[in-house]
């Protein structure tokens, strides 16, 4: 059997990529379950869940986890309530400048986030929103708009109008039709968008830090502090693995939707 040069080159590139992407993650994973790992050993010398217990028992971790979950749930639900009807309007209603409006969302997202948030934080300072739960909610809500409007809008466009008309026909009003027919029909994309929103809010640092700190500290902020300020590597590793789980689930779920052509449709294609 003859092996082509391109196959060999391709294989080498892939191996390098795998090493580059997988190695750091594997190291973090190993550290999370390692109790002792001294230099010459290739693998940890002592395995165990001790650091999981101690990490999860820390008061700052627990309160941060509670705050992060409360924030993520609030922001995701609020975002859904605000953005889904807007997404539907973009999908169904024809108005002048619809495309431009959709593209402007992209433009806003391309704007340097940090600068924008500093501006907002200054504004919040005078509104006495700095250091409050709802202050963080407001600033994080801004970040979710793009994905919560764009993705569902594409999905709504994919819903056959006849399905809605059939519902109207048997006696459902416009609102009931939207809730009982349109949303369930677009459920996979909406689910993916909500998961992505949840996860991105969970990991969001800039807004939470500028508006919330030092009074309120979210999970990523605690993690950051543990990684940079502690000698024990395991705390950071455990938290990383812990925080990796939701985003991994979200990505698995979103992959199906993003792979379909619904995402492309969001661009008005």
């Amino acid at each position, binding site marked *: 059997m003859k092996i082509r040069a391109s196959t060999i080159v391709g294989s080498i590139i892939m191996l390098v990529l795998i090493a580059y992407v997988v190695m750091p993650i594997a190291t973090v994973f190993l550290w999370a379950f390692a109790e002792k790992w001294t230099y010459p050993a290739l693998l940890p010398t002592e395995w165990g869940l001790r650091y999981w217990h101690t990490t999860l028992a820390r008061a700052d971790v627990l309160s941060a986890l509670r705050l992060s979950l409360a924030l993520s749930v609030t922001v995701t639900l609020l975002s859904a309530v605000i953005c889904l009807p807007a997404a539907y309007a973009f999908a169904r209603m024809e108005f002048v400048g619809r495309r431009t409006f959709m593209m402007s969302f992209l433009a806003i997202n391309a704007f340097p986030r940090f600068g924008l948030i500093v501006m907002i934080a200054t504004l919040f300072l005078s509104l006495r929103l700095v250091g409050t739960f709802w202050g963080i909610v407001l600033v994080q809500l801004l970040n979710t708009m793009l994905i919560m409007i764009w993705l569902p809008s594409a999905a709504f466009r994919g819903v056959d109008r006849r399905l809605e008309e059939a519902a109207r*026909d048997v*006696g459902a*009003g416009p609102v009931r039709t939207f809730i009982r027919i349109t949303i369930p029909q677009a459920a996979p994309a909406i689910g993916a968008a909500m998961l992505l929103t949840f996860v991105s809010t969970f990991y969001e640092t800039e807004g939470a830090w500028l508006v919330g700190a030092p009074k309120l500290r979210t999970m990523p902020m605690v993690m950051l502090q543990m990684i940079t300020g502690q000698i024990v590597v395991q705390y950071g590793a455990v938290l990383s693995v812990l925080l990796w789980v939701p985003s991994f689930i979200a990505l698995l779920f979103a992959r199906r939707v993003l792979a379909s052509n619904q995402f492309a449709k969001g661009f008005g294609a």
Partner: protein
Amino acid sequence: MAKLELKGIEKRYGNMAAVSDISLEIASGELVCLLGPSGSGKSTLLRIMGGFEKPTAGSVLIDGIDVTATAPENRPTAMVFQSHALWTHMNVFENIAFGLKLRKMSRTEIARKVDAALDLVGLTDYGKRSPLRLSGGQQQRVAIARCIVLEPKILLMDEPFASLDQHLRERLREEVRNIQRELGITTVFVTHGQDEALAIADRVVVMSVGKINQVGGPADIYAQPQDKFVAGFIGAMNMIDGHVSSGVMDAAGFKVRVPLPDGEATLAVRPEKLAIAAQGGDVSASAKITRVVHFGAYRTVEATTDGVNRVKIHADTETVLEPGQHIFLDPVHFSVFKDGHDVFRSAAVLR
């Protein structure tokens, strides 16, 4: 059971009129077909009846009550869509029960009605299935059940069988006809298939370019088309241009006596109204066979009368007919159109 009236309906999109000047009365319990090619405005008209489009002018009345401004959910109409439009996130039972639940019926009442509707369309015990696991024909039956379970006054069907194969289409058509008769429900049925319209309808409304060309029973529409469009659209028709002088029309070899002023006109003869003869008569045209096609029960013969005009003739399967053979053709029954309108119709057999 309800009467449906359309008065001076017009629907414009910008400058383009999708339908215009439509007035129509549909009697209680009647099955009326809207028949026309795509772009004739028949679906727009149906959607106006269902409340999905607002007419630019005119009014829709059901049992004498003006519903022009009434939303679909408040109209006593039910629509069967071409795409079936079943809600895939619900099972068959839930699809049919959805409208009943909105009407705040008790659970037992809903179950009883849904089961009865499923029985009626021949889908007993299919309630728990997902619509995605049904065939196209079964999906359309569910769509029909979803409508009739609500006991609407008017049933609207928008090319309901267009996506089904010929065999299934014919069967469902019979079933719909039976259900419609049994329930006595006023029905408007949109189709672009003339055989479908002729087979199912009490009355056929032939439409083209947003206007009604002719309204009549299937037999009338076929035998007495009022204009050239209807004549050409319903069934096969030989249209031969010719001219009239001193009461005799000459059209590619056919010479027929017509009480018309001199000028251009078109002779229209159905393929089954052309008789093949071995000997020529007064009105006969001599013709040369170019093609013979067998259809089992009959044959169609294509021939040219003057070397240019082609005509189609239905022939039995016994007579010897072969390409190249010379024959004579007698128009047994014919119409003459002038400026697109029917101006003369031969009364009886001419020979």
